[in-house]
């Protein structure tokens, strides 16, 4: 073998396989983890602001309690269904 051929042979043994599902899965896992962190970082301020707003509005809500109580369950259910539909639609369109 010439030195050039030896060099080529030594370089070629380092080349990873063209398809590597384990590597692909590892990257997907890291991206999922990064996405989860980003979601927490972006939603945490909203959650904090919402909590603060509710705490501030507590006296008002308490006084409206008897009025809102009959429809509160239905409103919460509607909000939950809407949020689930929105989340599902985003996941499907992203896939």
């Amino acid at each position, binding site marked *: 073998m010439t*030195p*050039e051929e030896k060099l080529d042979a030594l*370089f070629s*043994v380092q080349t990873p396989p063209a398809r590597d599902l384990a*590597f692909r899965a590892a*990257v*997907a896992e890291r991206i999922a983890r990064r996405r989860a962190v980003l979601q927490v970082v972006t939603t945490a301020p909203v959650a904090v602001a919402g909590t603060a707003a509710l705490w501030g509005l507590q006296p008002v809500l308490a006084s409206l309690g008897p009025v809102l109580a009959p429809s509160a369950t239905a409103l919460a259910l509607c909000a939950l269904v809407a949020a689930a539909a929105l989340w599902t639609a985003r996941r499907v369109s992203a896939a």
Partner: protein
Amino acid sequence: MGGLPTDAELVDRARAGSDAAFSTLVERHQAVVRGFLRRTLGGGWAEADDLAQEAFVTAWRTLDRLEEPGAVRSWLLGIAWRKAQDRIRGARRGAARDRQWLDSVETPAGVSNEERLALAAAMAELAPDVRACVALCLADGWSHGEASMALGLPLGTVKSHVARGRARLLVALGGSDDA
């Protein structure tokens, strides 16, 4: 029509939020990125593969900054190269550590173990820039222009790095100095 999507199409879909498209880009370019890092970074392959994963995550996060979607391969290599430079600067690296890059590799037929070690030592002694140029142009067959674009080095520098690196590696394998 109906054939494999181009890199530009996959980038567009990934930018729109498709994880499947980005995963296809990973599959398409992982061998080049990992091979480049294995040869350039030195150390064990696990470290190079770990850095390659980081490079792909960075690419996913900054996909909107890619100006030419068709040139995604060079762009990915550029990200990997910058990460490799940070890693090389950040770690205390010695020739012995950098030499590990071939220690776990089987010796190909026609090459002696001494030659394998000699090449590993010669590769470890090359400057990181030179090693990167050698890895792309000699090992992966990139043109000098492509390597220049990916590594952010002037074309003349890439050409001289490749020539110098090749000469040193060939001498280590028993070739002449002017090879």
